[in-house]
């Protein structure tokens, strides 16, 4: 067998369809409708029809969950999965879809994400046994990621200027994306001069809030080869969970990416140095910096130096990242970034990214994200994708 062994998902699932909803503000649409629109878009991209789908994956953003959503979409599936790990759910779904396809549980899987936080409609965040002991203290994404940045600065000397370079790189890419919410190129000074939201994170260290969504079609090699799209397949996947575990394991300087990353790289049989393009979830600038370290693109504590001076800008630096403008500038539907990370990685591997940001001969990419609250309980999922 050319692609991995029987106990691996390596090379067994292909991404045959992608669709990112062009909207960034959808007060005139329902959330379920957005799910249907992105599903339709991904099917058209793949050249398949709704009746072909026999596996469905969605997360907490799907109104009513997988049962209600599948019924709304009119799906008849033999496999489904509604794992919810926040923003990285869809990166988890991609790995799980590959497992299901490898095991013969389904052959054409649909994954959808959609929602309207910009309009003001968001499903509530689920709380666990910790609620009585934590909810009162007002943990939000801004201040919990702020605590991560504060500790990273304390331990490693990371600076706000270094974090700002991540936003600067994203903005250089977003200027070429006609759908991006923020298309203006910004400077380090612009980031540092933007209002402080939760120390040490400024407004421009934070991602955008957008309505919208995205969808994927994942299928077998045989079906993918029968379609007309360039062949892009998953060759490695890893997932992991991390929390303070009784308060003993609290360490805000690293994420569950230290486990999901190596699992994915090992399965794929490649190293960070081989990666041509990186989609890294960018809920905040600090999210990117920590993930690059955790995935092994640089050593722990050296993320600040790694991202500075345009190293993440396509055509300029060594590691082009988030060439659609990412969550920092383009799109962050439902406050969940995992789906758009996969979609831009597939565009790069197909050679269909914007010509100004397309990485030459892009044949190996990573799509990675975290979900939940990086500073408290979170998940990470890493996908290594290859153009065949």
């Amino acid at each position, binding site marked *: 067998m050319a692609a991995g062994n029987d106990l691996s998902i390596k090379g067994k699932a292909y991404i045959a369809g992608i669709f990112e909803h062009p909207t960034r503000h959808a007060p005139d649409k329902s959330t379920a409708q957005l799910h249907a629109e992105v599903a339709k878009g991904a099917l058209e991209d793949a050249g398949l029809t709704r009746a072909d789908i026999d596996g469905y994956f969605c997360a907490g953003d799907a109104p009513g969950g997988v049962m209600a959503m599948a019924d709304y979409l009119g799906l008849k599936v033999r496999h489904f999965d509604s794992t919810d790990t926040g923003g990285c759910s869809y990166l988890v779904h991609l790995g799980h879809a590959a497992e299901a396809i490898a095991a013969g549980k389904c052959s054409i899987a649909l994954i959808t994400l959609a929602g309207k936080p910009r309009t003001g409609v968001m499903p509530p965040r689920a709380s666990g*046994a*910790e*609620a*009585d*002991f*934590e*909810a*009162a*203290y*007002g*943990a*939000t994404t*801004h*201040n*919990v990621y*702020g*605590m*991560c*940045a*504060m*500790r990273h600065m*304390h331990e490693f000397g990371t600076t706000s200027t270094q974090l700002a370079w991540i936003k600067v790189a994203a903005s250089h890419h977003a200027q070429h994306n006609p759908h991006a919410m923020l298309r203006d190129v910004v400077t380090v000074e612009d980031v540092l001069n933007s*209002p*402080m*939201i*939760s*120390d*040490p*994170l400024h407004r421009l260290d934070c991602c955008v809030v957008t309505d919208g969504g995205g969808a994927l079609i994942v299928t077998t090699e045989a079906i993918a080869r029968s379609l007309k799209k360039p062949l892009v397949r998953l060759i490695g996947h890893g997932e992991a969970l991390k929390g*303070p*575990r*009784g*308060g*003993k394991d*609290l360490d*805000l300087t690293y994420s569950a990416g230290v486990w999901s990353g190596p699992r994915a790289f090992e399965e794929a049989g490649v190293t960070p140095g081989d990666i041509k393009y990186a989609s890294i979830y960018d809920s905040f600038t600090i999210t990117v910096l920590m993930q690059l370290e955790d995935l092994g693109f640089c050593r722990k504590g050296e993320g600040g130096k790694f991202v500075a001076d345009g190293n993440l800008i396509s055509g300029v630096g060594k590691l082009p990242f988030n060439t659609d403008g990412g969550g920092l500038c383009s799109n962050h539907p439902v406050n969940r970034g995992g789906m758009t990370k996969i979609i831009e990685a597939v565009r790069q591997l197909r050679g269909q990214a914007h010509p100004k940001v397309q990485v030459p001969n892009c044949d190996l990419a990573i799509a990675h994200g975290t979900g939940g609250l990086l*500073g*408290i309980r979170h998940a990470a999922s890493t996908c290594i994708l290859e153009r065949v």
Partner: protein
Amino acid sequence: MDSAEKYPKPQGNPETVKFWEQTAEGKFLIKRCIACGEAHYFPRSICPFCFSDKTVWEESSGEGEIYSFSLMRKSASGPYAIGYVTLKEGPSLLTNFVDCDMAKLKIGQKVKVVFKTTDGAPLPFFTPV
């Protein structure tokens, strides 16, 4: 601060009822496992480290130091300082820093527990020593 409006009432449950009863007495309880010796927070009946059910309540010194913090400025109820404190007994916990100049907080700073009355049980907060 108007604590009664800002902080939600703890719901409580059979596993944690003793914690909330004791906060009313001004005591800050943690749990310790007598099988492995480790303390943990928030309290569980089964130790998250060794999975023994031999966990017992222990009154914490309430003393610790700031592990990290962030001053949240974008808040309808005014700025507040969220952070993690590492207790002398070992566990770290999420809290807010109160009764202090929030602009002068520092990682490593010594802090101690203070209770603030809410519309339910008093909640533990921390303040610089």
